[in-house]
């Protein structure tokens, strides 16, 4: 039984716990704002391992690789596109090393950073090649499944999921980012939950992460919509720790771990199978979440 098969089997047995934000944890360890976090997969691997270890210790069943902006297209902004393969492979290997037999590794693929033709300047085949290359490097580094996340454009999500499959991913998780609109929750590109999930027809697990001005109550509503439209596939949600506010010049997320844990229990009651965290969440949020949803 491959580890990916084990992941599928575990998902049938019980609710799984994802991890929390990576970037803010790396910044707490000294990564400068605006510095490329992927660089640390090679240059400061101990600190990336430390972040994974904290989440594992908090009770995460899934560790997400530090490779969010890891397509050649996104890395080009830092002049690091030439190192894409090495940075992604190292990122997956670090998470795999920490996870051992205790957790599964999700190879993280975020948006490529631009807009696809005809709306934007990037030809679909160029984006597809970039996603495929990242996916292959993540799998080579030991990712057990690939996570296509924070998607707004259904066309981009579809491309990334297909690229993950082409690269050989046996399990693909796809999540979209929603915001409020007068006609309900939609992505920035205007897709409602049903439309977004149709674009993710080829993903094994579907759901939502991050979001603009979404409270945990909004996420409970979103969770119910996702479950209703997932066609029986497992649903994942990874919300922010509420919306950020500014206190004395510092940006803070006010949702405390206990509140996050209580919300997680609501999501799983609505049928969600994986709960993790996005912006503003840390190991304490994941610990509270694990305590709330994991059987003892």
């Amino acid at each position, binding site marked *: 039984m491959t580890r990916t098969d084990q992941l599928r089997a575990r998902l049938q047995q019980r609710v799984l716990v994802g991890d929390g934000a990576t*970037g*803010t944890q790396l*910044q707490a360890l000294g990564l*400068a*704002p*605006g*510095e490329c976090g992927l660089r640390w997969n090679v240059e400061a691997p101990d600190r990336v391992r430390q972040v994974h270890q904290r989440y594992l210790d908090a009770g995460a069943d899934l560790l997400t690789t530090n490779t969010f902006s890891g397509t050649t297209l996104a890395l080009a*902004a*830092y002049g690091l596109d030439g190192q894409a393969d090495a940075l992604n492979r190292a990122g997956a290997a670090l998470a795999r090393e920490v996870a051992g037999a205790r957790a599964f590794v999700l190879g993280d693929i975020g948006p490529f*950073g*631009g*807009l696809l033709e*005809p*709306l*934007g300047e990037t030809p679909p085949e160029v984006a597809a090649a970039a996603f495929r290359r990242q996916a292959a490097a993540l799998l080579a580094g030991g990712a057990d499944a690939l996570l296509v996340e924070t998607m707004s454009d259904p066309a981009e999500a579809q491309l990334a999921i297909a690229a993950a499959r082409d690269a050989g991913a046996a399990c693909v998780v796809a999540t979209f980012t929603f915001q409020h*609109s*007068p*006609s309900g929750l*939609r992505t*920035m*590109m*205007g897709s409602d939950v049903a439309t977004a999930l149709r674009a993710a027809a080829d993903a094994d697990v579907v759901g939502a992460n991050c979001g*603009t001005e979404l409270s945990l109550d909004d996420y409970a509503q979103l969770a119910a919509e996702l479950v209703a439209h997932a066609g029986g596939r497992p649903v994942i949600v990874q919300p922010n720790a509420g*919306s*950020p*506010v*500014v206190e004395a*010049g*510092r*940006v803070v*997320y006010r949702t405390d771990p206990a509140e996050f844990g209580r919300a997680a229990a609501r999501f799983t009651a609505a049928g969600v199978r994986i709960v993790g965290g996005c*912006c*503003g969440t840390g190991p304490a949020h994941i610990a509270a979440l694990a305590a709330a949803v994991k059987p003892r």
Partner: protein
Amino acid sequence: MTTLELLAQAVAAGKAKDAKALTQRALDEAIAPTEIVDRTLVPAMTEVGDKFKRSEIFVPEMLIAARAMKEAMELIDPRLAAAGITPKYTAVIGTVQGDLHDIGKNLVATMWRGANFRVIDLGANVPPAKFVAAIQEHRPHLAGLSALLTTTMPAMAETVRAIRANAGVPVKIMIGGAPITQQFCDEIGADGFAPDAGSAVDKARALVESVP
């Protein structure tokens, strides 16, 4: 319907080829380029921005309309330039230092161009000193600062401080981006905040027109 009415419809519907052909027809009918811009293209894009603001349309529809406007302007710009006519207001815009996200900033730049502002786009990851230098060089009425990451909001505060202290030009400063709020705007002393690219046009107009 008149040529200009058809042109307004073509732009609002994002029909770039029609917009181009109708602009040519309007010019052939000897309609003044300034009239095409002020009475047709700008109001058409304002309507698009209003619909976006009300979430009746989304980013794709807005971008397609902006592209239609751009096609029209490519025919009009040379004539305006030949007549020595420049837009009344100038803006510089950029994403602040440490932040590489430019989709939101690009949308606002597009909508400001649609409102007939001259827009100088400084790109992403723009250090405070580069904003200051661009403001000194172009003497804009408006400076737009964008941030998507909560971690780069402090860089926005720093940029506002640098502009106020060093630019030596009375420029209005507008900020925006997913995590930005009016509260943050007040706290860092920016002049205005807009929650989306449609509202950013109204706010920009209000700010530049508030200067006597």
